[in-house]
């Protein structure tokens, strides 16, 4: 195998793909990166058997082949100066000759045949969603997943395909986030609900990057999910188990509803949380027809009371929250105005962007009982 590749392309691709490589591998080859030539250039693959990432990048291929580079490759390439790097693999003794300018680096690797093959989606049902929407879905739900490994389903994000939309749901038991986006769903295929580790979705978001749009194909096999874009693929194992009945958590009616400026509410909560900064301390909301008072007090520290304008319907209400949970929700509403619905001082509340926009984000948080 012989190829030439731009240092900056290879360095950034390696950085992404190596996130899937095993940090403490059971077999050493799992810490490496599989490099193969293809018609599109080079493909890089890394996997720890839970998550796999494959990227394609442009390269000048002189001779086809495949080789597994050790995890070190990323460090080496990062230190090579900007410019073109030539690779020449000697498969007979599994060494790679890396040369640039007047320098040369020889490293030992593994034979490609020993690398576990990345599963293929085959004919598994698939749908398509835009990169922009997928990024948002991940961002708006991933934060609400739990870190508690003792209840695996809570560490994942539920993917539901329904009514022409792709829905992501995550909860840690304390709050629940739901986001939806339009998707291109083949009418002749059925999709079951699957739970994807939130860690894997974070890798998907990384691989997709901050910019660029285009379709992402999501395929669901029996025990894996595949995210495929033009040059990237992320594969991960699904979490087995029953996701909690999330629809029951989302209130269907309200006794009080308010609309307000999202940023005003968020800033007031963030300031109040400086007083109620310890876990278990509450921020209180007092809602009347036109105003909402946000307050917190801690005897040894001081107290804060802020008033913002709201438009509210229904009964006046006093309610207390863990400020962190409210802030998490508000930070995920990019719309200028938000809507907040309450079903009582001790029952679920639900926030969303006020413009609705097909109800693309719904966040349920339960209040605290204080005093």
């Amino acid at each position: 195998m012989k190829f030439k590749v731009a240092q900056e392309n290879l360095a950034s691709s390696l950085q992404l793909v190596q996130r899937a490589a095993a940090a403490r591998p059971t077999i050493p080859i799992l810490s490496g990166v599989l490099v193969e030539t293809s018609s599109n250039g080079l493909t890089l693959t890394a996997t720890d058997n839970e998550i796999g990432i494959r990227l394609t990048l442009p390269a000048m291929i002189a001779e086809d082949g495949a080789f597994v580079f050790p995890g070190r490759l990323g460090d080496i390439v990062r230190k090579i100066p900007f410019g073109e790097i030539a690779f020449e693999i000697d498969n007979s003794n599994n060494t790679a000759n890396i040369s640039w300018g007047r320098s040369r680096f020889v490293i030992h690797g593994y034979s490609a045949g020993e690398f576990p093959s990345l599963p293929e989606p085959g004919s598994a049902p698939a749908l398509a969603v835009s990169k922009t929407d997928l990024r948002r879905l991940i961002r708006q739900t991933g934060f609400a997943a739990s870190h508690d490994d003792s209840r695996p389903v809570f560490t994942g994000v539920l993917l539901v395909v329904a009514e022409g939309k792709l829905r992501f749901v995550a909860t840690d038991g304390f709050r629940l986030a739901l986001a939806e986006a339009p998707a291109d769903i083949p009418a002749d295929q059925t999709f079951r609900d699957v739970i994807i580790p939130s860690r894997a979705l974070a890798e998907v978001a990384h691989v997709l990057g901050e910019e660029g749009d285009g379709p992402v194909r999501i395929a669901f096999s029996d025990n894996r999910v595949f995210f495929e874009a033009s040059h990237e693929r992320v594969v991960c194992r699904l979490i087995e188990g029953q996701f909690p009945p999330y629809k029951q958590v989302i209130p269907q009616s309200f006794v009080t509803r308010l609309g307000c400026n999202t940023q005003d509410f968020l800033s007031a909560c963030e300031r109040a949380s400086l007083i109620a900064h310890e876990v278990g301390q509450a921020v209180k909301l007092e809602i009347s027809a036109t105003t909402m008072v946000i307050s917190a007090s801690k005897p040894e520290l001081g107290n804060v009371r802020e008033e913002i304008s709201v438009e509210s319907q229904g009964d006046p209400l006093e309610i207390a929250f863990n400020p962190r949970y409210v802030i998490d929700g508000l930070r995920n509403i990019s719309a200028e105005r938000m809507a907040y619905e309450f079903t009582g001082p001790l029952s679920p509340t639900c926030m969303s962007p006020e413009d609705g926009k097909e109800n693309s984000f719904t966040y349920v948080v339960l209040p605290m009982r204080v005093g």
Partner: protein
Amino acid sequence: MGRIVVLDAITAGRIAAGEVVERPASVVKELVENALDAGARRIEVELEDGGRTLIKVADDGEGMDAPDARLAFERHATSKLTSAEDLDDVGTYGFRGEALPSIGAVARVRLVSCLPEAGEGVEVLCEGGLVSEPRPGPARPGTVVWVRDLYFNTPARRQAMRSAAAEVARVSEVAGTLALAVPGVALSLVSEGKLLWSTPGSGSLEDAVVALFGAEFARSVIAVDGRSGPVRVTGLAGLPAVARRDGKRQYLFCNARPINPKLLRGAYEEAYRTLLQAGRTPVFILNLSLEPASVDVNIHPAKTQVRFRDHGLVYRATLSALRAALGRADLFGGRLAGYPAARETASAAETAVPADWRDVLGRGAGWFGRETLPPYAADDASESPESRGGDWAWPRDLAYLGQVGRTFLVARAADGLYVIDQHAAHERVVLERLVAAGAGEVDPEARTDQQLLAVPVTVELAPGEEDVLERSLAFLRRVGFELEAFGGRTVLIRAVPAVLSGVPVGGLIADFLDRLGAEGGPGTGAERAGAERAGAEETGAENAGVPGARGSLAASFDRFRAARVMAACQASLKAGQGLSEAEAEALLGDLGRTSEPRTCPHGRPTLLRIGLDELERSFGRGRG
């Protein structure tokens, strides 16, 4: 002289008969104790073949004249008691008058003694219980006892002896224990002509510890000095880093008499609770100074069992002294507990024997009457803690620098660089929040703040746990849980204490019930009483007086506390999680507000400090 008399029949009757000479180590113990009782300043112990062929104990004590030397081999002959009344007030090691006759019965003993001012000594032989008439001996002040051919006339006993190495180890332990009891006496142990160890007899316990266990060990102990009423507790306690798995290096003395450390097991376990990893036992060398009359030493011939007139008082004194010492110690470094500093304070204070020590101990004739005696009463650690354990307080200027390996937080303060284990730190924070939430126990009507759950947590009860749950339901509700039966053995948790926001609580409840079930639930006498005691200890006076009504509550509360320790670990942030700067700073702030920021509830350290001095040293910029 006539100082030795045969005990009268009543006294002899009050003394339980017992086997005094079990093995070479017991011979050494008896002879060294005799030497100490004779006021020796220097005692040399020599062994040959693990004590089988020869045990020699030489001292520079008061010595004896011919009649006393002869009488010393009579049973219940002792210089230390003259009547039964004296037994209530024993201030010497030996007093039964059993040692020499018992040894003489099973070995070939030669005793040479001489009074200090006498021009001639005396020599007595005893073989298989037959005592020779005294004859003139060398004029060497003090007493030397040679015990040859131990068990020469009892083959079964001789066979029962272990290898020479094992017997030497036992002798070393016994003699070492006494050396720690009396750091003012120079004690040495020689085996096969080789010096095993030798304490300097400087009066400093630290010096004795260095001699026996090495300077490295001595750097890992802190001074203990506390007083509760008539009980004074002094000595050294090991830092968590030197806690052991084998239960060794625990030395407890009562008025410098070695006693079984297990007697105060509750106190040291409580003091070190949450500081040690599971299965480890703390290391300590403690002396309890109290009026001889308030402790009964005559329970067992080995005299390691004693009975305190007021055990509770001794327990509390020990607990509070240990807590105070650990509280001001530099637990994670121990570098401040430097041996040289400790030695200076100790020897400086040697002459400053508190007056009450003499009152308490001064029986005149006995060993305790001497000036050098208060073994480590010479100890002014309370006045200058920084010279010993070192004052350490959470640095107010701690500034977060960054995260390493998604596991450790690095921060700096004026006194050095800090590395914090984020998982351990979080455990400590969660634990204290729970304890604070549970402290609202006193008012049964008060409810703690609750966080309602979006998705109820289901807990599957193990068979038989329904009962356990039933009993603890009221308690769980008051702490802030909202539970609901959900058919079968499933329980729904609908709300959790607000302090547990973000913490997975299913495992906590399961652990709690599991533990409660395993302990048999509130009810059984002794265990319940123990829990009540612990409860009273914890919450102070308001609980102490009403054991009846609150009994079961206190018991389950204590168990809950234990369960929480376990749960805190599970509940906590796992290592390997990225933290935002704000989160890391919040965690550090929370940790700083806890009562014991230096260890997690399981006793692992939460933080490591690399002091400025150490940095300077490491880079060759130090003052030496």
